């Protein structure tokens, strides 16, 4: 009996030491074996979490249980034995992880690629070797064999009819080739600069006055005007000349200060400023409206004339003369000489014929 008891006790002790491999969970864990990930969606025991001395123990136990579940799942997979070790082939991970770095942006197109895209030109595949009829052999597209073939082919160059007979045709060809190479290199660098948004200086002739933009011309004029001993202080102004408004002009013109940004005024000061500006504008407006005054004057005159007419009319009556009959001439004809006419007296000036 003792032995049985002993064995049972030992078993019990063993059981106490090792926890059972079965774990009870309210909700099943989501397990991704590929990345050895188990996520527990069950609620945490908040009461235990809040207790200082219980928290760590609770979390440790929870972790153990979940790890147990994960390992249980792993043991379900087919196992192999490799060199005294039991090995499991993990399946592919199903959890998608967010990428750490941003998605790479597509490379900016070169100028030619842009053009080809707009025109719908697609690249044609060329063979690496090409049959040369003249040499009767296959010649590569590029490389030392190609240049050797070129040399073989062009051992003699015909001088064109209208070309200078003393000119070295071989040297001309070589220089043309090197120019093409240089141009290609320049375009390659330009493409890189464009892709990196680096400003490159203009190439070619400097702008002349007939090709300059209005902005360039005004800048040039402003700089020229300020290029005197007195920094253009005593330079005459053209009639209706305006201050040039070109960005960054003050840095170019000698003697001009760089404009500093005005400090942001506090609201009270800004209001005062605005009211002052407005006051000046209102002061400038003419107090007498000329048009109004003129129309007023015209109207007054009209009224006056009407009054006069009214006053004169009743005095006139119907007939002027006392006889009560209409005279032969109701209205006098206007006369140039104010009624005076002396045939003997000469008019003004001499008679013109």
């Amino acid at each position: 009996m003792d032995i049985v008891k002993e064995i049972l006790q030992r078993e019990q002790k063993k059981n106490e030491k090792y926890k059972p491999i079965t774990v009870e969970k309210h909700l099943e864990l989501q397990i991704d074996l590929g990345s050895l990930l188990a996520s527990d969606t069950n609620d945490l025991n908040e009461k235990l979490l809040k207790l200082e001395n219980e928290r760590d123990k609770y979390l440790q136990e929870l972790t153990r249980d979940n790890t147990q579940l994960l390992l249980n799942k792993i043991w379900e997979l087919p196992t192999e034995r490799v060199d005294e070790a039991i090995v499991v082939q993990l399946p592919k991970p199903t959890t998608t992880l967010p990428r750490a770095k941003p998605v790479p942006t597509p490379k900016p197109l070169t100028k030619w690629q842009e053009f080809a895209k707009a025109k719908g030109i697609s690249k044609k595949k060329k063979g690496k070797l090409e049959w040369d009829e003249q040499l009767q052999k296959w010649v590569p597209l590029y490389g030392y064999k190609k240049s050797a073939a070129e040399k073989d082919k062009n051992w003699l160059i015909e001088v064109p009819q209208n070309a200078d007979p003393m000119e070295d045709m071989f040297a001309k060809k070589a220089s043309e080739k090197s120019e093409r190479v240089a141009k290609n290199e320049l375009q390659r660098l330009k493409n890189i600069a464009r892709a990196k948004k680096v400003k490159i200086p203009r190439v070619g002739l400097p702008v002349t006055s007939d090709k300059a933009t209005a902005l360039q011309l005004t800048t040039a004029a402003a700089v020229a005007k300020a290029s005197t001993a007195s920094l253009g202080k005593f330079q005459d102004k053209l009639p209706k000349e305006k201050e040039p408004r070109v960005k960054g002009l003050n840095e170019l013109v000698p003697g001009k200060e760089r404009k500093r940004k005005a400090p942001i005024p506090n609201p009270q000061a800004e209001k005062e400023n605005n009211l002052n500006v407005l006051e000046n504008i209102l002061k400038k407006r003419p107090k007498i409206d000329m048009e109004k005054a003129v129309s007023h004057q015209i109207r007054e005159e009209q009224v006056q004339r009407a009054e006069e007419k009214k006053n004169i009319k009743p005095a006139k009556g119907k007939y002027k003369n006392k006889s009560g009959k209409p005279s032969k001439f109701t209205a006098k004809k206007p006369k140039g000489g104010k009624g005076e006419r002396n045939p003997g007296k000469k008019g003004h000036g001499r008679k013109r014929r």
Partner: protein
Amino acid sequence: MKVLSEERTRLLFEKLTKYIGVNVKLLIDRPDGTYCFREKKDRVYYLSERLLHLAQTVKPDNLISAGTCFGKFTKTNKFRLHITALTYLAPYAPHKIWVKPSAEQQFLYGHHVNKSGLGRITENTPKHQGVVIYSMGDLPLGFGVAAKSTAECRHADPLATVAFHQADIGEYIRSEETLT
């Protein structure tokens, strides 16, 4: 949002006085709070101090507009009023023109106001005075410039232009994408 420079403030106020005269003071000096003019991409906005502080929390590149757009400075540095300013011009304008219901649509399509469409006009309106244009139901429709003074209007023939069109509320539909 930039503070307007001295010169630009002058240009703005000169333009506003053409329409509302001394009443510009009422826009600056308001009893219900401090209001100010700010500039963004050559456009002038009228907004309260409170709104300005809120707008300053937005990154300048991302800020498109704040407050009411009054108009913009052209490339030749002249100020041009936009229709959005009508809300502030209409209540203060001393010179007004009312258009007949039959001429309303013509005006809202961007045409000048003819004598035949003229319903009423403020007495003593001088020539080339900025005027706000109303419908007969006292609804502000837009603004423009008087082509003829009130006295001249009496003797004008029916097809003569009385007011030049500058902006109308039809622009809210016609040029929706350019208004800010």
